[in-house]
């Protein structure tokens, strides 16, 4: 069930250049069960910025009623968020959307997790769940450069982890798809989140028989009411079919959406 709650900041750390890890506490966490879902949030009740901001859930800790997000401070909304300190409140609406289907990977199988930039965070909770289910995970994480990279250690503790940066300042130089190709990585299923161009390339990889991708789109409501975030399904004879990233997604079956 979707809740709206003023949640309490229990941790706010800049873990890379302009990249923040924030932990929030509240009963809303009870509603969280799928990795890949997101929250829609607002740092304060100001009219500027007016709209909420969608941010993925990166880690869920039910026992502590806490969840963690990782976000890049870029514009007005995320910068306001970055100003929050432990003990402050954040207005959270969530959990929203449909996440990654963890159960699609059978125990003993291998899952390939491919993330780019701020698309990396939701893969963390996913990987934790997969590993808990006895699924072997391989992680391929792409960043702009060394300064923008984060959570490589955390992923490493869950499975093989390849890191690439566009400028080669950390890990291999190149894109995540180069890494998959160069190492001939194969798996039973893949899960991916990142910029659309990356997802498009990932869909063409054929490193696994099937997989799931998580999309980004500018949002209004975040709950499926405003039609701001639609995308075209790949199969659409009428030309008027649509999927909403916020409520049908953000996670879709690879090949479902026209990228």
């Amino acid at each position, binding site marked *: 069930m979707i809740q709206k709650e003023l949640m309490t900041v229990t941790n706010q750390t800049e873990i890379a250049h302009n990249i923040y890890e924030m932990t929030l506490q509240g009963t809303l966490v009870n509603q969280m069960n799928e990795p890949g879902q997101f929250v829609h949030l607002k740092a304060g009740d100001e009219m500027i910025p*007016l709209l909420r901001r969608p941010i993925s859930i990166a880690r869920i800790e039910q026992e502590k009623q806490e969840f963690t997000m990782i976000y890049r401070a870029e514009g007005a909304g995320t910068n306001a968020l970055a100003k929050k300190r432990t003990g402050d409140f954040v207005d959270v609406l969530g959990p929203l959307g449909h996440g990654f289907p963890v159960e699609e990977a059978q125990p003993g199988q291998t899952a390939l997790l491919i993330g780019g930039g701020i698309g990396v965070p939701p893969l963390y909770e996913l990987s934790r769940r997969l590993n808990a289910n006895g699924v072997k995970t391989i992680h391929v994480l792409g960043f702009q450069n060394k300064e923008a990279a984060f959570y490589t250690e955390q992923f490493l503790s869950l499975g093989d982890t390849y890191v690439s940066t566009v400028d080669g300042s950390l890990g291999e130089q190149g894109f995540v798809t180069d890494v998959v190709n160069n190492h001939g990585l194969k798996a039973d299923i893949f899960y991916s989140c990142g910029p659309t161009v990356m997802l498009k390339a990932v869909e063409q990889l054929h490193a696994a028989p099937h997989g799931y991708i998580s999309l980004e789109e*500018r949002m209004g*409501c975040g*709950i499926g*009411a405003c039609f*701001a975030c639609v995308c075209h399904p790949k199969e659409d004879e009428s*030309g008027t079919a*649509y999927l909403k990233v916020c409520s049908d997604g953000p996670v879709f079956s690879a090949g479902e959406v026209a990228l």
Partner: protein
Amino acid sequence: MNRLNIELPGLSLKNPVMPASGCFGFGREFSQLYDLSSLGAIMIKATTEEPRYGNATPRVAETPAGMLNAIGLQNPGLEKVIANELEWLKQFDVPIIANVAGSQTEDYVQVAKEISKVDNVHALELNISCPNVKTGGIAFGTIPETAKELTKRVKEVSDVPVYVKLSPNVTNIVEMAKAVEDGGADGITMINTLIGMRIDLKTARPVLSNRTGGLSGPAVKPVAVRMVYEVSQNTNLPIIGMGGISSVEDIIEFYFAGADAVAVGTANFVNPFICTELIEQLDQYLEAHNVDHISELKGRSWK
């Protein structure tokens, strides 16, 4: 004591607060959050004869105290709206105001005729003011004679009262209001969005793929209040006022300006619970200010 119930043509409202068209879909999503029967009414998303996909994304952008949207009248089309959405809405005890759109007169007439026959549709809202479609829409909303003619045609076929939604993008809003009054409109809803644009500094291109979009939210409230103030003094039609409402104080301001009821659009995105919260707070406000009935506040600024 009930301070909030309002009688308008076709509409017996428990209270004068309703979500604005396009900001509430067909209610399904919000029904997960609260009981839709608590609302005064629901203005459903614009319905066209045929299904429409609308514009390419990005469809929304943020502006100082406001937002731009260019959804482009996306909707599943008349048939599905009736069969799925309105049917589903019947479980709630709430009158529906069906927002009717089209590219030419025949489209409007066709949709109005069919949709006005549906049980829970208590009124139509003629959307002659959508800035986000290339043909029709806005032309009907900016030329008085055209607006009057369309109103007349729709009135002829509608089984329920017809409210016309005015565009603020006109030189003379009173002239438009009088034109639709002459055309036989039963009420006015106002305002739709102002046409605006934002340009992305990195790409140097408009942020919205439709280039321009409709400006809504607190930023436009002074324009909306002014227009309600002018129109309420110059027509005899009831007015459902909207544009930037996000607090009880805003509702009171619209009443003072001359509104008979209000709709809340953009604020539903900021706080999806806002409509129910406002209904409760409005009652408390009236009690605290010793107002016996909300209708007493109408037009106080000019009475």
